[in-house]
C-alpha cells in the first residue's frame, strides 16, 4: 500500500508510511471497538435465549440492536470512581495495559492474504507472546484496587494464564509444523483450496488438537467456564470490582478483542483462514497470476471469510459460557495439567509421525490438490524481501533440507 502511494501518487516516503500506519491502526481499533459493540449485544441476546428470556428488546427497534450503544453512552456518563487506598497511577494505567496488549496482537494478524497491519515472519509467535501480556493489566488492576476481591481475582488469573500458555503453545506449534513457517500469511495460504485442505482435516490428530486449542483459548481469555478471575458468585466481580465507567469498559473491550483474536487465530491456524470451503475464485479462474495484484474484491471476500469464521468462534464461546457451570480452581488446573497438556503433547507427536510416514494423506494426492493456488504470490513477495541474500531463499533452503534428509 505504502509503495503504491509513493510510486503512483508521489507522496513523500515518510508521509506515505505514516498514513498507512495510521490507517491500519484506525481500522484495527474499529475492528476491536465495533466488534465489542456487536458481540456484547449478541452475548445478551444469546444468553437470554439460552435462559429462555428475550433479552434487550426496546432500544433501537425490534431486536434491541442499539442496546450496546446505549450502554456505551451510559458508561461515558458514569462517575470515574477510585478507592481511597488505591495506588492511583497503577489503577489508572491497568485498563490501558490490558487494551494495548489486545490491540498489539492485532497488528500481526492477517485478515486476508495481504491485508495485514505488519507482516511478521514470526507472526504466530508474536501474537501468542503479546496475548500473554494482557494478564499484566489484570494483575495491576487487582493489586492497585486495594480490595481483597480484586487481589484474589488477579492471583487466580495469573496462575491460570501462565499454566494455560503451555498447552496453547503446543497446539499452535502443530499448524506451524504442517506449514513449515511461523508466518501467519503463509500458514493461511497453505490451506487454500477445498475445505479438505484445512489443517483441521489434515489428519485425526490435528482434528483433536483443534479442540484442545479451543479449550486453552477460552481459558487464556478468561471466559466461562474458566472465568475464575471474575467469578461473580464468589468475588463480586473479581479484578474489576472497583472499576466503573469508561475504565471498566476498557477491560471489556480488551476481553472481546482477545476473544475475537483467538477465534481469528484458530481460523487461520486450523480452519483455512481467509480461504472459503469452496475455492470459488479458483473455479472461476481468478486466482492464477491475478493474485500478485489481487483485485480488491478478492481481498474483501477473504476478509469476510475470516470475519465469518472468527465470529462463529466467538459465538461458540458464548454458547459454552451460558451452558457450562464455572470450574473450581483445582478443576481448572487439572484440566490444564492432566488433560490438555498430555493430549496436546501426544497429538503433537502423532502429527509429527503422520507427517513422516503419510505426508500425502491416506489417499495419495488428495491433500493439497489445490494448495498451490497463490504459492506464486507467496514466493514472489518473499523474494522481494530477501532479494539481497540469495543463499537464504526458500528454494535453496528446501534443497538443503532434501539433501540432508537423503
Amino acid at each position, binding site marked *: 500500500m505504502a509503495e503504491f502511494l509513493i510510486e503512483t501518487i508521489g507522496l*513523500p*516516503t*515518510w*508521509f506515505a508510511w505514516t498514513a498507512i500506519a495510521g490507517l491500519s491502526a484506525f481500522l484495527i481499533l474499529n475492528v476491536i471497538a465495533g466488534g465489542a459493540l456487536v458481540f456484547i449485544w449478541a452475548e445478551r441476546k444469546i444468553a437470554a435465549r439460552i435462559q429462555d428470556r428475550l433479552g434487550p428488546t426496546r432500544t433501537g427497534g425490534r431486536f434491541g440492536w442499539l442496546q450496546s450503544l446505549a450502554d456505551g453512552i451510559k458508561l461515558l456518563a458514569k462517575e470515574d470512581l477510585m478507592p481511597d487506598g488505591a*495506588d492511583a*497511577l*497503577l489503577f489508572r*494505567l491497568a485498563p490501558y495495559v490490558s487494551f494495548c496488549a489486545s490491540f498489539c496482537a492485532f497488528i500481526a494478524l492477517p485478515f486476508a492474504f495481504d491485508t495485514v497491519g505488519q507482516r*511478521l*515472519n*514470526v507472526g504466530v*509467535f*508474536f501474537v*501468542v*507472546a*503479546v496475548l*500473554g*501480556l494482557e*494478564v*499484566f493489566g489484570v*494483575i*495491576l488492576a*487487582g*493489586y*492497585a484496587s486495594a480490595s481483597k476481591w480484586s*487481589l484474589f481475582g*488477579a*492471583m*487466580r488469573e*495469573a*496462575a*491460570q494464564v*501462565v*499454566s494455560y*500458555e*503451555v498447552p496453547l503453545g503446543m497446539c499452535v506449534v502443530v499448524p506451524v509444523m504442517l506449514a513449515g*513457517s*511461523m508466518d501467519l500469511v503463509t500458514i493461511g495460504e497453505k490451506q487454500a483450496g477445498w475445505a479438505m485442505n484445512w489443517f483441521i482435516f489434515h489428519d485425526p490428530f490435528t482434528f483433536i488438537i483443534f479442540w484442545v486449542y479451543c479449550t486453552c483459548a477460552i481459558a487464556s481469555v478468561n471466559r466461562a467456564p474458566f472465568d475464575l478471575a471474575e467469578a461473580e458468585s464468589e468475588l463480586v466481580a473479581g479484578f474489576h470490582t472497583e472499576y466503573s465507567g469508561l475504565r471498566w469498559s476498557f477491560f471489556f473491550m480488551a476481553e472481546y478483542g482477545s476473544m475475537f483474536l483467538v477465534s481469528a487465530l484458530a481460523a487461520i491456524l486450523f480452519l483455512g483462514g481467509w480461504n472459503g470451503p469452496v475455492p470459488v475464485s479458483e473455479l472461476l479462474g481468478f486466482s492464477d497470476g491475478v493474485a500478485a495484484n489481487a483485485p480488491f474484491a478478492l481481498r474483501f471476500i477473504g476478509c469476510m471469510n475470516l470475519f465469518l469464521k472468527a465470529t462463529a468462534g466467538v459465538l461458540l464461546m458464548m454458547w459454552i459460557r451460558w451452558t457450562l457451570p464455572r470450574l*473450581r*480452581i*483445582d478443576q481448572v*488446573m487439572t484440566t490444564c495439567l492432566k488433560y490438555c497438556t498430555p493430549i496436546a503433547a501426544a497429538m503433537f507427536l502423532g502429527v509429527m509421525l503422520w507427517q513422516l510416514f503419510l505426508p500425502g494423506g491416506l489417499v495419495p494426492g488428495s491433500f493439497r490438490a489445490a494448495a498451490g493456488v497463490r504459492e506464486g504470490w507467496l514466493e514472489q513477495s518473499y523474494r522481494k*524481501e*530477501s532479494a*539481497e*541474500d540469495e*543463499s*537464504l531463499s526458500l528454494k*535453496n*533452503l528446501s534443497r*538443503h*533440507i532434501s*539433501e*540432508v534428509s537423503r
Partner: protein
Amino acid sequence: MNQDAFSISLSLFALIDWHGFFFLLFAAIACIAALMVVLTDNVVRMALHLILSLGATAGLFFLAGAEFIGAMQLMIYVGGTLVLLVFGVMLTAQTQLVALRTPAGDRVLAGILAAALLAVLVQAAFSIESWQKSGQGIVSAPTATPLGMALVGVRVDQSAEANLLDAKGGYLLPFEIVSVHLLVVLIGAAYLARAKRRRVPRPVDLMASVDSVEPRSTVDSPSTVLSGGAE
C-alpha cells in the same frame, strides 16, 4: 504564507531520520524505565518499570528487523516478569513491605558498581570497529528459518552449497543440553509443588500440635499459586 509554512514543515519532516528518532525514543524509554526500577520504593511499580524497560528493548529489536528476537524478548523476559510481579503483589500484601527503603550506603555502593560496569560496557562497545560505521540499512530480510535449521544442526548460512553434510557448526548439542536441562527443571518443579497427600491425624499428633488439625487445603494455598506461576 500559510502554504509556505506547510511546505517548510513538510521538508523538515522529510529531513528527520525516522529510524534514528525511534531508536532514540525506545532507547530513552528503556534507560529511564531501568533507572526507575532502581529508584522506586514499591515492588509492584518496580516490576512495572521493568516491564516497560524490557518492552522498549523488544521495540529496539523490532526496529532492527530482528522480529524473532523481539518476540522472544516479549515472551521470555516480559512474560517472565509476570512471575516477579506476582511475587511482588504477594509480598506487598503485608504492609511492612509496601515500601522498600534502600540505605544510603547501599545506594552509593550500587552506584559505584553500576558505573564501573557501564564504563566497561561502553568502552567495549566503542572499541569494536565494525560497530562504528553508520547503519548499512537492512542487509537481508531475516527469517527464523535459518535459526531453526541451525538449532537442529544445519548451518544454512555458513555452507551455502556443496559441503552441507560436512558442516558440523550447528547448535544441536547445546540445544539438546538446554532442552534436557529444562525438562529436569520442569519435573523438579512439578515434584516440589505436588499435592501432598492428606493424612488423617492420629490422636497423638492431635495432642502434639493444634495446627495439624486444620484441614490444609493444598489447592488454594499460595505455594500452589506460586508454583503455577513459576512454571
